[in-house]
């Protein structure tokens, strides 16, 4: 049996539902089970890195029962990287014999016997991030059968060594798949007409989106999709750029299209090009809607001798209508290929376990903006690179951070997730700001409480990342991870991620502005299924916020009233019962202004509010 993938190029897209143009439709693949709440459990990575073992996993399962975490909703025990043999055996995945001597079936049985669920890890690339050459690329069907045999309930799938993008450990030249060639211009001939259009001519064309650029000579490049792995790239709005030429013809019919282009294999300039034609009648012969675009080419262009050596392509035959037509040059393959790869695993799992919904936890680190397409196959999608790189090992809890300029902190993850609420929901899935760092060194009680509040308000998967031997029932850590009132927000049946309705650093668009300055207080509003709502005042600063922050319920409803089950009642209400979800204190308030002051450094004030 083969032990290496035979794939040499991205596969053709299997249907319209895989295309970028379908992403905004919001329709999950029919086979995907929707209506699931965020997953809750434990993942081995933050606690033990690649040093996790069968013994440690069993101990964790035992601790789940001892601490009665299962009764709070925590159910998955997930083995992360470092558990397989470094090579396939007869084409199949096998257990690392020293760390997991009894095999995965036996470990899965042990976990299931405790009433818990069993999760594992793999990768859409050729290798796992820690190096083992056992990625699922080309082995989806074989691996899915193994996971079915082992009784796996949850699969986290990473993105290292991915062949069709410049992901971690991928070849840098894989960028050739994710960006279009640099384009100088086009020529369109036919029916006695001859159009020569330059990318530099703003009257003839338009570069859409925010990633595309023109070089000094006016040639268009960076035609592709942003890379969301690191902090700072907003997830909101258009993430891709297309170069659109406008051609006004006097006669309908077939025309020849020639493209002047130059290829490279680097970020911003690649070899893969997609061409679409949009005209009032361009799709009519395919039964498409009027003004729908028709992709006439989706593949590699012949490489040019250098990145600046422009050449003219062969003729593409295109059908244009009389009047204005748009000829669109694009490359959406960064997103489409990644969807294709995760979908291959999704369908393999469905085929191997038709009676079971194995949760697919997508971990491509936000690289291809999975908030746009992940809902089609995934239960959740990571939004950034890791929350910590100082992972622990047996005897060392590792370290987390409250804030950091990179992705490796609670605030870094929160800052992006908090503007992503419109991408999540029961019909889609959940934004995943990574496993929690509660219980790791350098994370104080105050930080842990606020971390838990953030993840619960944001409907993030609640995956514990600590060595549970550090927790005893009733102790400080236990009270935080076992806070039933907070978990109830995360697992509320309405399934609405909180919306940021106020920030001390953003007056106009607190719901969508990606803010990375942590010296601020945010106010989040979360509608709940019984008509209650939660409101949370979060001080991201490491200094105490002594000012009183007040937000009217009217403002909250302006932003998210349409998501409330009892908008009419909330619009009229003037008396409320407030329960502080950290202290448990209950108060009654007259008036529609909600306030909090003297918020501790890295602290929060979070209420569940009922109308009296």
């Amino acid at each position: 049996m083969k032990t290496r993938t035979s794939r040499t190029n991205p596969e053709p897209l299997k249907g319209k539902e895989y295309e970028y143009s379908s992403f905004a439709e919001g329709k999950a693949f029919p086979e995907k089970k929707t209506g699931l709440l965020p997953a809750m459990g434990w993942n081995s990575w933050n606690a033990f890195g690649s040093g996790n073992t069968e013994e440690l996993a069993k101990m964790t399962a035992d601790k789940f029962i001892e601490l009665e975490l299962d009764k709070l909703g925590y159910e998955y025990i997930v083995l992360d990287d470092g558990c397989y043999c470094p090579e396939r055996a007869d084409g199949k995945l096998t257990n690392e014999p020293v760390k997991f001597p009894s095999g995965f079936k036996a470990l899965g049985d042990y976990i299931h016997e405790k009433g818990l669920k069993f999760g594992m890890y793999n990768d859409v690339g050729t290798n796992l991030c820690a190096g083992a050459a056992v990625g699922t690329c080309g082995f989806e069907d074989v691996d899915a059968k193994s996971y079915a045999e082992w009784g796996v309930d949850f699969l986290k799938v990473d993105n290292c060594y991915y062949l069709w993008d410049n992901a971690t450990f991928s070849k840098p030249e894989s960028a050739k798949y994710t960006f279009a060639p640099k384009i100088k211009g086009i020529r369109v001939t036919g029916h006695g007409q001859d159009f020569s259009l330059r990318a530099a001519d703003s009257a003839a064309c338009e570069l859409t989106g925010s990633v595309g650029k023109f070089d000094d000579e006016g040639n268009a490049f960076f035609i592709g999709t942003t890379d969301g792995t690191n902090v700072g790239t907003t997830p909101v709005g258009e993430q891709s750029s297309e170069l659109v030429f406008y051609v006004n013809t006097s006669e309908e019919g077939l025309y020849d299209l020639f493209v002047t282009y130059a290829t490279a294999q680097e970020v911003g300039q690649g070899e893969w090009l997609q061409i679409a034609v949009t005209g009032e009648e361009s799709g009519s012969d395919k039964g498409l809607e009027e003004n729908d675009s028709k992709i006439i080419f989706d593949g590699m262009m012949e490489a040019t001798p250098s990145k600046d050596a422009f050449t003219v392509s062969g003729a593409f035959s295109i059908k244009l209508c009389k009047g204005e037509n748009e000829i669109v040059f694009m490359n959406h393959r960064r997103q489409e290929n990644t969807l294709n790869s995760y979908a291959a695993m999704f369908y393999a799992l469905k085929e191997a376990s038709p009676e079971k919904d194995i949760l697919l936890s997508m971990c491509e680190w936000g690289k291809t903006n999975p908030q746009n397409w992940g809902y089609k196959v995934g239960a959740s999608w990571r939004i950034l690179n890791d929350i910590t790189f100082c992972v622990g090992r047996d005897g060392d809890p590792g370290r987390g951070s409250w804030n950091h300029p990179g992705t490796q902190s609670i605030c870094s993850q929160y800052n992006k997730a908090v503007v992503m609420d419109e991408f999540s929901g029961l019909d889609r899935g959940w934004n995943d700001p990574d496993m929690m760092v509660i219980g790791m060194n350098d994370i104080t009680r105050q930080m842990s409480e606020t971390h838990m509040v953030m993840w619960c308000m944001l409907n993030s998967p609640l995956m514990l990342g600590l060595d549970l031997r550090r927790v005893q029932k009733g102790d400080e850590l236990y009270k935080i991870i076992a806070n039933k009132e907070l978990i109830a927000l995360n697992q509320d049946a309405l399934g609405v991620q909180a919306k940021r309705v106020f920030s001390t650093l953003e007056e106009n668009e607190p719901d969508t502005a990606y803010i990375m300055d942590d010296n601020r207080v945010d106010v989040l509003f979360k509608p709940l299924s019984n008509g209650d709502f939660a409101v949370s005042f979060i001080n991201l600063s490491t200094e105490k916020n002594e000012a009183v922050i007040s937000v009217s319920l009217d403002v909250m409803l302006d932003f998210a009233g349409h998501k409330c089950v009892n908008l009419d009642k909330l619009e009229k209400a003037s008396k409320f019962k407030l329960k502080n979800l950290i202290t448990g204190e209950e108060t009654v308030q007259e008036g529609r202004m909600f306030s909090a002051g003297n918020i501790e450094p890295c602290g929060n004030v979070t209420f569940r509010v009922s109308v009296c």
Partner: protein
Amino acid sequence: MEYTVLDFSNRIAELLSVPVDKAYKSGVLEMQDLKETPLTRQTAARIVHRTLLYLGEHDERNVEKAFLLKDIYDCHTCVMHVAQVYVKGIMKPSEDLVFGMQECLSDEEANDILLKISNKEKRIN
């Protein structure tokens, strides 16, 4: 003959005065470190860091300097391994502020690293 992971693993086991099998079972080495494949710098960083921990040497707490390496996040599973061996002066970048994760180590470079594990005075600050 190219220097391999197995060569390096054998040298590490020798340094720890244990059989290579024990170095694997004790977690200093991974199963994949027992193969005749070229030794990359990121793999060497992981093995060296785990060796230091096995020897009881504590991690450096302040590793911010390592976050200036342009490719530090190219290997998210080995960020801390690279950071520790870099900050401790055991492995230097292959070029200015680039660690060179996937570059292979020569016999000579491996010898230099092994020397610095046990001899702190040889480390570069």
